[in-house]
């Protein structure tokens, strides 16, 4: 892999990273987008619909993914991880690790013949492990780039894919490679994870059969989902009573997560509406402490859900257990009437909170390599959140999306453009632009 000299490095290929990359590239800057997964798209490409418009998520994300892939000023670096960042003048020297795909991407056409031939079935993280794919596969149907990747952890090295590949792209000899990027600025778009289910003992610590996370429900509801319908994972039964437990991992000092994750109220209401469409006979209950519908059109969305018959119960769920039929039992005080109830549901969705993907709770990610100071909440520290929300403590490094803090898709996109504007100003100010590319800008 050749070394690169560019104006801006975007770390993270989710909706925020893609938007920042496109905004900078459209202004003529040379941009590289690093993504640790084999495809860009991030969390958003796995979602079903956006709130409050109920527009299709894929329909918004896929065009952006394609635009990134085909933009002449964007170098797309998938399946790569940032190893270290060193300051170099006013810019940065970045070391990047290219993980081996065992597929020559210059040859692979994405025909999927290897995938059809592969005998090994593997749980698919894209479907939150509810579905399966092969040990060699194109990651998902709308993946960008449409290139196969082989998972060495599961592969038997039987060689069937190699025999069947029409362009001889399979290469079992690939090794991890390191290369360097010289960049004038960096935009952190490292995204989020969910509060781990294991941390909340009262909610079964992830061991209950029919208690799922909200991203699983997104996959059930997405047209490309694993079953194409809503089924509970414990026994494949169609649920007739579904409950949402709000604040299951935010606003909870016992977990050291005191902030509100902002999106959970709205995604729970949105999923409730979508379930009402998918399972018209199902009863849906949302247990909440406060409903926080802060955005444009959000309150109306909430009122609509109520009018549609979604039940809202005020009270923090204290515990979830399960009966002998694996039905989750929720215990809560209905604080409006001061009564304690124990209710049995078929399926419970925990509205888990948002934590930074680089959270110390999880494996240290890119944020560690970049060595940026973190706030007390674990998100990347921003010294002046009121006046310069995308500017970090290190000159030339900017932050966007849920790497800054919990936010929804709309706000992620807005902050992505803001970070791009900040980066653009910084690159021009420091006059460190790559000569060759000035031509592109002024052509």
């Amino acid at each position, binding site marked *: 892999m050749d070394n690169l000299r560019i104006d801006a490095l975007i770390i993270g290929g989710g909706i925020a990273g893609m938007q920042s990359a496109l905004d900078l590239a459209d202004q003529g800057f040379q941009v590289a987008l690093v993504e640790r997964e084999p495809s860009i798209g991030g969390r958003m490409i796995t979602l079903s619909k956006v709130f409050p418009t109920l527009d299709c998520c894929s329909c918004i994300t896929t065009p952006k993914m394609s635009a990134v892939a085909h933009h002449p000023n964007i170098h797309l670096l998938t399946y790569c991880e940032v190893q270290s960042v060193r300051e170099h003048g006013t810019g940065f020297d970045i070391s990047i690790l290219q993980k081996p795909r065992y597929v020559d991407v210059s040859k692979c056409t994405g025909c999927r013949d290897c995938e059809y031939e592969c005998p090994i079935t593997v749980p698919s993280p894209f479907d939150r492990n509810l579905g399966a794919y092969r040990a060699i596969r194109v990651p998902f149907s709308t993946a960008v780039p449409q290139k196969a990747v082989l998972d060495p952890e599961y592969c038997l090295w039987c060689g069937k894919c190699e025999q069947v590949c029409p362009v001889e792209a399979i290469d079992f000899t690939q090794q991890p490679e390191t290369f360097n990027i010289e960049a004038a600025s960096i935009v952190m778009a490292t995204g989020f994870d969910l509060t781990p289910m294991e941390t909340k*003992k*009262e909610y079964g610590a992830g061991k209950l059969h029919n208690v799922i996370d909200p991203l699983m429900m997104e996959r059930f509801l997405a047209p490309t989902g694993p079953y194409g319908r809503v089924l509970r994972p414990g026994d494949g039964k169609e649920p007739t009573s579904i409950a949402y437990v709000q*604040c299951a991992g935010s*606003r*909870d*000092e*016992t977990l050291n997560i005191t902030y509100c994750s902002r999106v959970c109220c709205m995604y729970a209401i949105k999923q409730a509406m979508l379930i009402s469409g998918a399972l018209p006979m199902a009863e849906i209950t949302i247990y909440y*402490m406060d409903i926080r519908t802060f955005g444009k059109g959000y309150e109306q969305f909430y009122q609509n859900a109520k009018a549609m018959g979604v039940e809202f119960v*005020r*009270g*923090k*769920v*204290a*515990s979830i257990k399960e009966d002998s039929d694996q039905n989750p039992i929720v*215990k*809560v*005080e*209905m*604080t409006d009437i*001061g*009564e*304690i109830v124990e209710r049995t549901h078929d399926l419970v969705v925990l509205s888990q909170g948002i934590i930074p993907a680089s959270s110390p709770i999880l494996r240290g990610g890119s944020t560690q390599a970049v060595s940026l100071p973190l706030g007390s909440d674990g998100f990347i520290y921003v010294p002046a959140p009121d006046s310069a929300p995308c500017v970090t403590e290190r000159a030339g490094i900017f932050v966007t999306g849920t790497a800054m803090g919990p936010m929804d898709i709309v706000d992620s996109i807005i902050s992505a453009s803001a970070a791009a504007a900040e980066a653009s100003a910084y690159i021009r100010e420091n006059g460190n632009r790559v000569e060759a590319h000035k031509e592109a800008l002024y052509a």
Partner: protein
Amino acid sequence: MSARVDPQFLTEIKKYGAVNIEACFNCGNCTAICPLSTNGETFPRRIIRYAQLGLKEPLLSSKELWLCYYCGECTRTCPKQANPGEFMAAARRYAIASYDPTGLAKALYTSPILSAIFLVLPALLIGLGIYAFHGPMPTNALKLFDFIPAGIIHNFGVIGMILLAVLLLAGMVNMSIKVKGEKTPGVHHDWMRALWETLIEVLTQQRYQQDCETEADKPVWYLQKWFIHASTLWGFLGLLVATALDYGLEVLGIKATGTWVPFWNPIRLLGTIAGLLLVYGTSMAFVRRIRKSDATSTYSTISDWAFLILLWLTGVSGFLLEIALYLPQPGIWAYWTLLFHISAAGELLILMPFTKFAHAMYRAIAIYFHALKPVPVAEPAKAGAD
């Protein structure tokens, strides 16, 4: 229904120890996680709400304050770490102060200086008072009641008991009036059954044992909170019974109080076992509070310490006396131990209505009203199809 709102109420209760209760946003987690809270008698959230809204009377009329054994589960899981368990304890202290007509309990709870004085002064007065009547200290044989005549102890005891009974009764009546609620005409309550259930719960601490040991990995039985508590309670009751029986034998003219009996004498045996239980329970409670073993033992008020110290001192000095009785040549210390023992026990009883000790009676009353259920009215036989 009208209610009087006292804007200073929360500030007032916080003087009794509610640690962080203003952080509570009434999510109801505490009520739902509580193993004892039931519909119609929900707590802690409702009680916290009373405090936040300044509803003094409804709070003081809540028997739920005393149904709580403070397992600490609400505090452990509270999403705001508002410490509802400690709030319940503070509200109980506030209630003890409110039911006491003299105002002494309030002074003891809210003023560390007064507390310190009252920890020493009554014992000193009792000690000096009794010492004024002292006799010789024979060293050839241990004759405790030559030193302090039994009659003197008896007279002091009677005076103390009468005083105690009046004050206790005042507190109990105060509480009962508030807690019993409005009488519904035509509804009869099964008070016999309620009394029986109260007796059983007080003696066995069943609910404490079965419902309130909530730790994920329970310690062995003798390290569990309920056993430490029950051991103290049984020890105290056992000693009370043993003392009463010993005195009863004198009244019947069978044997004089305080004379030598073999250690296997049933009354002596009861006293010994009860003493062991009392010293074990109070010592373990000390250890838990010093170590701050869990949320329930983290915050200790002067009142908590004073009650424990007095119980422990009474228990240990009693044991020293028993040992002295069986020693061939006991020293002069035995006589001083007796004086100390009487002073400590006297203070313990005299201060009962004003200190943590008062929970013993208020809890019993609460359990009684909790157990008091209307006698079901026989349904009239159904007429045929209408």
